[in-house]
């Protein structure tokens, strides 16, 4: 199932990749933060005197376009890649983008290990590495040159780069088991990975440790971190895993939808309904015009099934 899910995403990405006219765009967010769209999952770019930091790298096939897009923002060295999760539409560009960069080394490292500075550092939660790699002697689902080089096991990793604190916060059992949200504290921007999107229902990769409650908890975490200027707007900007640039109100709407559908499916389960009966009841019908799909990788049926199974503790 794990392989199937990754394969489905990769296939969906392949379809995009085969489109030679796929366009990659750079969009300024605020401060030193930019968003690159069109390369697969959204990519966050932070630039400054120390170089370039990117959150996620898009599909492998679009890596050259992403590198070209980064060059339009900064000629500085790519120092860090942070992966929000392991799916190939967010990590596919790791190899090329990592190798286009370099790690800051010195002191007792240079001289002893000459290639220590080759390639940018790739930071992620340990579960991202676990899902991209494989035990020795078995086929890994992704190339080794793109694996995370700097993993963390706890709930947080802190980094200071380009004059600001970067908070990498693990969100257990949300979209997958290895999700991180990345908070740029001075620029006041949050990069959410696929915990939050504007284009589809929450994608819950059950086989990779995702869950509906973890997704809601992670959305709540994002809501708690955002400080709007007034009402539900401005202030903290939010870059979703897919879709348009957002702020507080958009995250609230998505959280509202997710909770309401969770509640509906939970009540149908309490009535003893089977999965097919729950699907037939169409508990998402009011949100389908916004997030639903009958075709493609993540259909409405798949979402309902994932919520149902997650609530029942099934995989």
């Amino acid at each position, binding site marked *: 199932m794990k392989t199937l899910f990754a394969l489905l995403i990769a296939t969906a990405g392949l379809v995009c990749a085969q489109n030679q006219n796929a366009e990659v*765009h750079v969009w300024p967010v605020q401060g030193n933060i930019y968003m690159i769209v069109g390369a697969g999952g959204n990519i966050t770019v932070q630039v400054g005197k120390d170089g370039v930091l990117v959150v996620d790298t898009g599909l492998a096939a679009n890596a050259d376009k992403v590198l070209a897009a980064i060059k339009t923002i900064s000629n500085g060295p790519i120092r860090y890649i942070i992966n929000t999760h392991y799916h190939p539409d967010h990590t596919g560009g790791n190899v090329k983008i990592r190798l286009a960069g370099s790690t800051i080394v010195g002191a007792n490292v240079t001289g002893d290990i000459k290639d220590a500075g080759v390639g940018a550092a790739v930071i992620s939660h340990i579960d991202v590495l676990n899902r991209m790699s494989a035990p020795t002697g078995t086929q890994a689902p992704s190339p080794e040159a793109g694996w995370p080089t700097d993993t963390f096991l706890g709930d947080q990793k802190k980094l200071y780069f380009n004059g600001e604190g970067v908070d990498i916060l693990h969100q257990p059992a949300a979209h997958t088991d290895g999700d991180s949200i990345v908070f740029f504290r001075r620029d006041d921007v949050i990069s959410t990975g696929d915990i939050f999107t504007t284009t589809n229902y929450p994608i819950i990769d059950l086989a990779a440790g995702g869950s509906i409650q973890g997704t809601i908890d992670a959305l709540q975490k994002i809501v708690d971190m955002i400080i709007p200027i*007034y009402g539900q707007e401005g202030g903290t900007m939010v870059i979703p895993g897919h879709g*348009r640039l957002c702020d507080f*109100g958009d995250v609230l709407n998505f959280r509202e939808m997710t*909770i309401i559908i969770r509640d509906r499916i939970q009540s149908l389960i309490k009535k003893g309904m089977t999965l097919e009966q729950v699907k037939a009841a169409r508990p998402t*019908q009011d*949100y389908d015009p*916004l997030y639903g799909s009958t075709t493609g990788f993540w259909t409405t049926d798949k979402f309902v099934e994932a919520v149902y199974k997650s609530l029942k503790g099934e995989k």
Partner: protein
Amino acid sequence: MERIYRMATSVWLFPVLLTLAHPAFGQVNLGGVWNNLQILHEDEPERLPGPELGDYLGVPINDAARYRADAWDASLITLPEYQCRVHPSDYVPSFAGMRIWEEFDKDSQTLIAIHTHHFAWGTERTIWMDGRPHPPEYALHTSQGFSTGKWEGDVLAITTTHLKEGWIRRNGLPRSDRAVVTEHFIRHGDNLTIMTVIRDPPYLTEPFIRTRDYLYEIGGQIAPYPCESVEEVIRAKGIIPHHLPGTNKFLDEFPAAHGIPPQAARGGADTMYPEYQNKIRGAAPAAKADAK
């Protein structure tokens, strides 16, 4: 002789300057404070108390919008993060005063933008008049959207995209973030009519049209509108008040209170047109609430 020449020049030049001052295309000044407190009777429920729950009459909603509105619980706005949510630009003209001011390029006196500031929640909006394009879809959506305007004779025609999700009515009828809104600001002396046309395929089967009227107010002022959220109800995080399907007992109240056939209260494009009365002629009105 020189004096006569100067006078002749003045006589010739003055009408020319007047002509230049009036643009080739029709344009009226909209600047000033406009108010509608004197005409709150126009669609009054929308102005102050809010429409009744379950009143979808005359709104061309689809099934998805109806289902969503049925689930809406007014307690939602007790959540701190919802208390200061502003009215979107296609709804805020229902409320109180509005200041309009124009922004001109200093040298060319070309109109760059028209700005509005509504009393309600202090929403401000820019209507770009300089021909700039709308941003790409991946740009931020806001409650006021991205607006561009042009003059159609003396009428200001505005197109707004990039709206955040909003509402058609304050009883849960949704308007999606994909809506395109067209407005016409029509001034007749001291009267201003704003006609709003909402096209929203996710939730509307036909465009929804409404008008709001304002009166020019000499010396009018707009008060500030500070909003600070408070904890009205102690709740655990992650709770969203809503009605599960089939459990909203308030939906019956509107047709019962007004003796309206229940199916009419459910709205839809049919209910916008006068012919609908013929369609439901003979249908039993809902029982009066006090008769239950």
